[in-house]
């Protein structure tokens, strides 16, 4: 439901019109870092590291092969689970969305499953798949696939009937109609879904690694909690934020490009009464 609300074109339009230039945002970032730094200096405690201590700890950790292996593990599992969630969710959702009866059958069930906090289900993944990357990746896939499926299904339900009738009158088959009519129509929503799914998948992976990962950044975080190494924890949080933000910004850029190309175009001047 969240994903749908965030992917809704009207919400996006309104968000875009409300957004503005980046000066104030930079001021907030600067103030946040300054407050962190000042707080750490005033506290003068091992519990509150300064930003430079955190970054130095991160550099030290990145020099260790075992830590680099953990980072690569997280990235590898993230890429695999994200791509599978995006593809499976988009294709199955679009195929279902163009069939109204089966949409009415399946979508309420999918929404009900989406209501259950997915995090409560992850012990089941570990019971069946064991500890390790397979169960963490499967849980990350599960966290991302349902929102993507719902977004694609709702978008496909909204494909204009006239376009489908035209395809039928031209005797376009069930499979060919997907690339010719359905995909171009659902692309803007799917692009928004790609962005949202990334966040859900990464969140699912980090939580799974924290709970029962045998490697990965989540497991490194918990290892440092046991050792009470705050500067290492803070450095790893910075790394995780960077790993999340770079693809997220790329996906936001991709969404804008797709929306410009496939999204609804403004009506020509004078076409409205």
């Amino acid at each position, binding site marked *: 439901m969240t994903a749908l609300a965030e992917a809704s074109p009207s919400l996006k339009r309104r968000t875009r019109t409300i957004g503005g230039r980046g000066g104030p945002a930079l001021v907030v970032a600067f103030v946040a870092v300054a407050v962190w730094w000042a707080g750490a200096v005033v506290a003068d405690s091992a519990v509150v590291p300064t930003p430079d201590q955190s970054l130095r700890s991160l550099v030290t950790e990145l020099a260790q092969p075992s830590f680099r292996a953990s980072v690569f593990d997280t990235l590898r599992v993230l890429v695999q689970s994200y791509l599978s969630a995006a593809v499976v969710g988009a294709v199955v959702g679009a195929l279902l969305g163009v069939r109204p*009866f089966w949409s009415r059958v399946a979508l309420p069930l999918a929404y009900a499953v989406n209501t259950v906090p*997915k*995090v409560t289900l992850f012990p089941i993944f570990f019971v069946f798949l064991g500890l390790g990357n397979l169960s963490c990746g499967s849980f990350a896939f599960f966290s991302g696939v349902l929102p993507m499926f719902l977004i694609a299904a709702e978008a496909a339900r909204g494909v204009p009937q006239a376009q489908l009738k035209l395809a039928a009158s031209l005797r376009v088959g069930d499979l060919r109609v997907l690339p010719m009519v359905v995909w171009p129509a659902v692309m803007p929503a799917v692009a928004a879904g790609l962005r949202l799914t990334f*966040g859900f998948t*990464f969140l699912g992976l980090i939580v799974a690694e*924290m709970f029962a990962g045998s490697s990965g950044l989540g497991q490194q975080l918990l290892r440092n909690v046991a050792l009470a190494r705050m500067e290492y924890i803070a450095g790893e949080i910075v790394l*995780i934020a960077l790993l999340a933000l770079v693809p997220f910004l790329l996906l936001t850029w991709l969404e804008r490009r797709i929306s410009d190309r496939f999204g609804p175009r403004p009506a020509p001047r004078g076409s409205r009464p």
Partner: protein
Amino acid sequence: MRAGRRGAPGYLRLDRSRAGGLPAWAWRTIIVAAALGAVELTARFALDGSYELVPITTMAERAAELLVDPGFLTQHLLWSSVSVLVSFTAAAVIGIALGYLMHGHPWWNRALRPYLSVFYAVPIFALYPLLVVVFGTGLMPILLIATAFSAVVVTTHASLGFASVPQNVDKLATAVRTSRSQYVRLVLFPAALPDIIAGARLGFAYSITAVLASEFILSTRGVGHFISTAYAGFMSVDMYAGIFLVAAFSLVLIAVVDRAAAHLDWRRR
């Protein structure tokens, strides 16, 4: 329009009320019954008492026992319920206040908007271990994570709601010389209410998720901790009963919130 017109492809969306002679609700019932039946039969006969899966009936029986167990109620269910309620209330208050601030002050809107839009891309639970070291494994880190996790979605929706007042309504309010408090009470909040409700509904679901996830990772109490301990101790009946309870409670609570939201949301009337 009846479906199945000869030669018409399925994608044409010739809507129909039945498939295979059955309406949509009957198919839904069949799918749910088949899924539950498959779990019951697999657990009872194929796996036959193994650790991996327990029958649905056993889960329900154990869940019913837990609901009358004073230890579970006070140590876990009450603890999680209080965490969800406190974090959700804090998130709703903070979210609506920030949304109002962003609506009234464009500078704050430009300052906060980029962070709100990327917030859910960064796994916020990465901060939880840091908070545990600072505050210990008590209620505070769980409340902080859950409040932050759910406040952002409330803020986003509230600010969109406040921005949704139609221009002609704004002009009318100016023409009849409403005071600031009258404008907020009679125009701004009623206009924003559907978006605020939508944000609060999501915020509630996010609070449940955040509280349970935090309890799973590191805590000493709560339903998440109960499930996690049961998993670690190979007590699969308790683990599945906990999951069963959370799923049932979430479905019921969200349905109740949806019903209340539909009642309050004037756009749906």
